């Protein structure tokens, strides 16, 4: 029972934060994104074709890059990028934490 309550709390908090984000994004875009559409037409809907795709689709074929919309298990460049960036962030934190500890040690010793 308590687990269900905890799940409920997590979902409520997530829904509140997500709701705020949704309202914020839609409010900031309502005056700019769809200004050209007449009232009554509604929002453009996703189509089966490429009609509404952005000009620079991230899944467009790139030379020397396997994969794409259907995957392909080619060279996992994005995975490597993620590992490298996380390592840099973690490394910087560890260096700062180590320097802080060292400075504290030096000031505490007479």
């Amino acid at each position, binding site marked *: 029972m308590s687990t269900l309550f905890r799940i409920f709390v997590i979902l409520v908090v997530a829904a509140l934060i997500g709701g705020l984000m949704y309202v914020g994004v839609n409010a900031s875009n309502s005056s700019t994104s769809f200004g050209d559409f007449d009232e009554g037409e509604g929002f453009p809907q996703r189509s089966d074709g490429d009609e509404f795709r952005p000009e620079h689709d991230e899944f467009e074929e790139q030379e020397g890059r396997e994969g794409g919309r259907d995957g392909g298990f080619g060279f996992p460049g994005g995975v490597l990028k993620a590992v490298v960036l996380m390592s840099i*962030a973690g490394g910087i934190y560890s260096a700062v934490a180590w320097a802080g500890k060292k400075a504290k040690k030096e000031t505490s010793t007479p």
Partner: protein
Amino acid sequence: MSNTNRTKLLLDIALFAAFLVTMDPRFSGLAVHEWLSLAAAATVVVHLLLSWSWIVEMTKRIFGKGLNGARMNYILNWLLFIDGILIMLSGIMISEAALPAMGIVLPINFAWRRLHDMSANLSLLIMGLHIAMHWNWIVTTFKRVFFGVNKQQTGVMAKQEA
């Protein structure tokens, strides 16, 4: 070695692997990217449930004296949670595989795509810090789960490394 710690570690390894795969949708394909992300979101709830007592304790003591490291960890976890919600929400709004497969078609708003990219890049930074802050726990628990090193031995090893 408690079962909770073992479960936590195995769950976190699975979550991390899923996180890496979903960071490269060209590698996995769009359908895998979306379905795996939805599954990972459910797993994050379990991750939070396993750390529930710490979350409750820190929420009560967040303005207390001392606890600087724990406070920073707590704030970072909230940032990661909020960023995760933004990734999921923006991902759902631009979904081209999972939601249409469920018969749900949402209006297009390209701001969500930009937000999805930005929040995903930000998550790399926060995740790097999150892992760095828990590095000692990860290494200790990993040794205990996979190499059967007990608590006293890990303490000795840590002293030797220092």
